[in-house]
């Protein structure tokens, strides 16, 4: 059975449906792309899955457990972590500081330890682990910079690094490459692939850059007005007439076809 499942997921804001009867099945270690025109409900989907919003109806099952209605931190604890469309960082902390904080789930730091400074060993372990992640995201030479002072591209990577630091089993990336130049984009794409291959994570990816999506994802789900429009392999999606229709307006189609 699938690692992650959403059944007839529906979310209403006031009168209008941001999501309606959405079904979604994601296998372990799959990279699933979620695309659709603006306002299709992609981010809402992430918010509902990660527990920011409680779904109006429907179920969210993760590793056979119902997680809809749980608080975000609980869901994160179970292994589902998301990044944000906005660059969400702790701006007054260093890169290292951010990643260390993000390792909260691995080490909450007990009161006794806090007061008497025992167990230095644990702290050192965490710093090593954090460094590993920072290094993996290619931020090692910036590790003592204040997050505030990083260039945009690196801030995005730091966002991902923090999600990784929580050591989730499933990670939801909300437009990880927006505002990146081609080289940064390339780098980020490779990293995401490596995250799956080496760290054995399942990945949900919301992205506008179709090159990235088509190049990276095993399967793609297309949303439109909160409904699922299509669901399948990248090439199937590219041929799907409904999808093309939804994306009417030339340059977007071109974008869709990755030209």
């Amino acid at each position: 059975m699938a690692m992650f499942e959403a059944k007839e997921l529906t979310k209403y804001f006031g009168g209008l449906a941001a999501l309606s009867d959405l079904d979604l099945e994601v296998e372990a270690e799959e990279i699933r792309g979620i695309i659709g025109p603006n306002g299709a409900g992609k981010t809402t989907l992430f918010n509902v899955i990660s527990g920011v919003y409680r779904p109006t109806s429907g179920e969210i099952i993760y590793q056979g457990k119902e997680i809809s209605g749980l608080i975000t931190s609980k869901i994160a604890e179970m292994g589902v972590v998301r990044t944000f469309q906005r660059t969400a960082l702790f701006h007054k902390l260093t890169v290292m500081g951010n990643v260390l904080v993000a390792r909260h789930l691995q080490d909450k730091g007990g009161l006794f330890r806090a007061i008497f400074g025992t167990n230095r060993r644990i702290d050192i372990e965490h710093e090593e682990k954090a460094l590993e992640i920072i290094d993996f995201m290619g931020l090692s030479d910036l590790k003592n910079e204040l997050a505030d002072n990083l260039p945009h591209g690196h801030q995005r990577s730091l966002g991902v690094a923090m999600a990784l630091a929580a050591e989730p089993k499933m990670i939801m990336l909300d437009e990880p490459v927006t505002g990146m130049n081609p080289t940064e984009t390339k780098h980020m794409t490779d990293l995401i692939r490596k995250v799956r291959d080496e760290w054995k994570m399942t990945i949900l990816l919301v992205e506008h850059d179709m090159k990235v999506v088509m190049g990276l994802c095993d399967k793609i789900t297309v949303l439109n007005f909160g409904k699922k429009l299509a669901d399948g392999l990248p090439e199937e999606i590219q041929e799907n007439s409904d999808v093309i229709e939804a994306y009417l307006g030339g340059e977007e189609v071109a974008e869709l076809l990755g030209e």
Partner: protein
Amino acid sequence: MSKHKVLSIIGVAALLAVMSVLPFFAREYYVEILIIFLINIILVTSYRLIATTGDWTLCHVVLMGAGAYASALMAKHFGWPFWMTMPLAGAAAGLVGLGIVYPLLRTVGFGFFIASLAVGEFIRLVWIKFHTPFGGPRGMINIPYVGELGPIDFYEAIPYYFMTLMITSGCVFIMYRIDRSRIGNTFKVIYEDDILAESIGIRVGRYRSFAFVLGSFFAGIAGALLAHRLSAIDPHQFGLDEMVYLLVWVVVGGTATFAGPVIGVAVMTFLFEWTRPLLAWRPLFFGAILIGFLIFLPGGLESLISKFAFWNKKQKTT
């Protein structure tokens, strides 16, 4: 051991040394002021501990009162020694804090601020309403003094001063360690971005209440110290006016750094004594100071020294 660490240890040692010789030079009246000053240090430091999560409360002084009443009741009715009642008073205040924090958690920013005022007032009215055991508006009298330890009589100013100095240093040390620990960081990141914090698995609600209870605990300790120095307490003692004074200290000092509030108390305690000749004009003077700081130096005195102040950076309002 690194160089600056050595330096700061020397610094703290020097500070303690000064504080220890001081009472032998200052006259008795000023020793008494220093005792209250030390108690207030616990109060502001614990207030900041809560504030680091972004929750500014208006019931901290009431929680101090809870500690004072608890300690007084235990000492009077069970005849327990101060060494027992003081920590228990902290625990009691912590429990009261735990009791009131859950409803408060539903609010943030200004809502939290005002809600805490309401809850605090309610607690005070309970003391006023129930003559047994709280003594009603008259409060409690004949609270036992700390008593004697061999030749040392803690009724005398200097012994009590040193006891308070030890307890205060202990509390401040603990709070400093917490502030610097992972837990302390967690508090601060919650203040900066609670949504992000939640998304990486931080139980924001749990940590906010944890900070609140912890702060209440230390406020309770301060309360116990006060109650057994005065030997008489009443609800008026823990009213809104006293709370506003606490705010003045915190605002004047600033809350970005651990030292900020302490600076605040130090400076204001001095100003307070120094302006006594102004008699009836004094509230006007302090009102002006409060306004001036909030407008021209929102970071407090500390921001003159250390440039970054999170106090007024990011706002959380309902």
